[in-house]
């Protein structure tokens, strides 16, 4: 667990970056710090590994005051990923990943074999290790950055806008990958971003900062979306706040029915009973694509799919992609409304 207690940071030029911050970041969870630029979120993150020293207040990591430890040793025990990856351009990818194990004196052979193992963990091919950072794409470089941070198996991982410089498609992949990794590793992650969608997607807890270094609200994504503390938070969450909440609720509870007989549109299945597309009886050439949804998909994607479907029905499938039934637009709407009510009551 990371604990901030009345932490204040004023820079020598007089600007206050962090104002009287008290905050707990639970063990094994992802805490996302969001806010517009200059709100102190990066400073807050950098105070955890003493890249920035607080003006007053205390910070504890795992119950120990961080100022009682040697700064370099503290940093070796905390993974650190930054936006432009910050890889060493003169070292191979493998040696980049082996940085902290080497600093800890593991010996070259052991450090390298650990590094090779981590490249696999973050989804990079083994031969990537022999290459130099500039030979990799932006997304691959970020993966290497994550691997380097994980190399010595630190309990805490600090990530400063790690996916800010990659395109949206790669960013989504990297987010998925991080969520998968986190399920395996259960690190205490502190993640800085200015992208609220990324925060909602990754955070177990979201802390919203306002310019001047004020923490405005810290809550679970559901709580935040259902009950923003003030207009600043509501504005920051954006006009689609209601829909974002639906992205956090699965559609498992929405009832299913067999595919109805008759009507203009029929759902075409392949031999394995997997949905292919909607076909029209009156116009044989007309086909509308279908995106079947699993129980783990969100209510938001169900809503989206039902709007795009010619019948208002969505195709539901099991884990193998085999059709289990359909759900109607009305049922989805009803559950969407319920999800909001429940979130408000719970929060």
């Amino acid at each position, binding site marked *: 667990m990371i604990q901030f207690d009345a932490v204040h940071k004023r820079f020598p030029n007089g600007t206050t970056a962090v104002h009287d911050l008290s905050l707990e970041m639970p063990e094994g969870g992802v805490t996302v710090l969001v806010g517009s630029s200059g709100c102190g979120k990066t400073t807050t993150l950098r105070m955890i*590994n003493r*890249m920035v020293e607080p003006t007053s207040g205390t910070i504890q990591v795992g119950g120990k005051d961080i100022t009682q430890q040697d700064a*370099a*040793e*503290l*940093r*070796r*025990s905390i993974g*650190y990923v*930054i*936006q*432009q*990856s*910050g*890889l*060493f*351009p*003169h070292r191979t990818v493998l040696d980049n990943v082996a*940085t*902290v194990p080497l*600093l800890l004196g593991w010996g070259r052979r052991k450090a390298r074999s650990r590094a090779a193992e981590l490249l696999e963990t973050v989804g990079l091919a083994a031969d990537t290790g022999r290459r*130099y950072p*500039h030979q990799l794409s932006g997304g691959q470089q970020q993966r290497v950055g994550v691997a*380097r941070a994980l190399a010595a198996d630190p309990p805490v991982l600090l990530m400063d806008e790690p996916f800010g410089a990659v395109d949206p498609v790669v960013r989504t992949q990297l987010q998925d990958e991080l969520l998968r990794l986190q399920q395996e590793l259960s690190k205490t992650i502190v993640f800085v971003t200015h992208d609220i969608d990324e925060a909602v997607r990754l955070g177990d807890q979201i802390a919203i900062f306002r310019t001047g270094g004020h923490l405005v609200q810290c809550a679970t994504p559901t709580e935040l979306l259902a009950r923003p503390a003030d207009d600043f938070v509501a504005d920051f969450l954006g006009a689609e706040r209601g829909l974002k909440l639906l992205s956090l609720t699965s559609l498992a509870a929405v009832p299913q029915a067999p595919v109805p007989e008759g009507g203009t549109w029929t759902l075409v299945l392949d031999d394995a009973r997997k949905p292919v597309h909607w076909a029209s009886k009156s116009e044989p050439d007309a086909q509308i694509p279908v995106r079947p949804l699993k129980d783990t998909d969100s209510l938001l994607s169900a809503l989206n799919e039902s709007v795009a479907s010619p019948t208002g029905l969505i195709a539901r499938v099991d884990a193998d992609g085999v059709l289990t039934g359909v759900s109607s637009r009305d049922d989805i709407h009803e559950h969407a409304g319920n999800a909001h009510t429940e979130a408000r009551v719970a929060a």
Partner: protein
Amino acid sequence: MYELFKDLGSWLVSGEQWQGTDGIAHRLAEHLQYSLLSTLIAAAIGLPLGLLIGHTGKGAFVAINLASFGRALPTVGLVVLVFLASGLSMTPVYVALVALAVPAIVTNTYAGMTAVDPDVKDAARGQGMRGHQVLFQVELPLALPLIMTGLRLALIQVVATATIAAYVSFGGLGRYVFDGLAQRDLVQVMGGAVLVAVVAIGLDLALSGLQRFLFRHRTA
């Protein structure tokens, strides 16, 4: 004019001219010895200074102003000044040549250090490297191409200027220039000048080739 070049040609290639203590081979060896020793001493002074200024960011004005100071420094004046103070020895020559070489080394080393991506330095510190580890494992290797450029420029300047050793009665290729001037032997003057130019240009080409080979994997 044509006669002059013909004489110069035969002066440069005659076997006799290459032998003995006043032969080209011996003078060339002396010249290289003065130049390499001066550059080494200058590197011993300039490299730590440039690295220190670049690493700490303190005293940057020194590194920047040294360059113009180096350009403005009258080398011959300095030789005479130290000569008057210390008497007849190689000291005035080495002092002048080292003073000539240090600015190029400091300025380029400093430039190389400041060109290191701040994100990379931040990441190095953030992974838990101590100050000296950041310096020797990250900053120095990344600044190396520019540091080598500084050493190369310093050596070329020193080679071109080491003729002044002859001015205070010592050897080197400058011997031909000063003796030739004293004897009104134009061929000998030109021979010395051409040799100095060839050595300087040759070293420059060889060293820049070496640099290109060593840093062939670097992008920038």
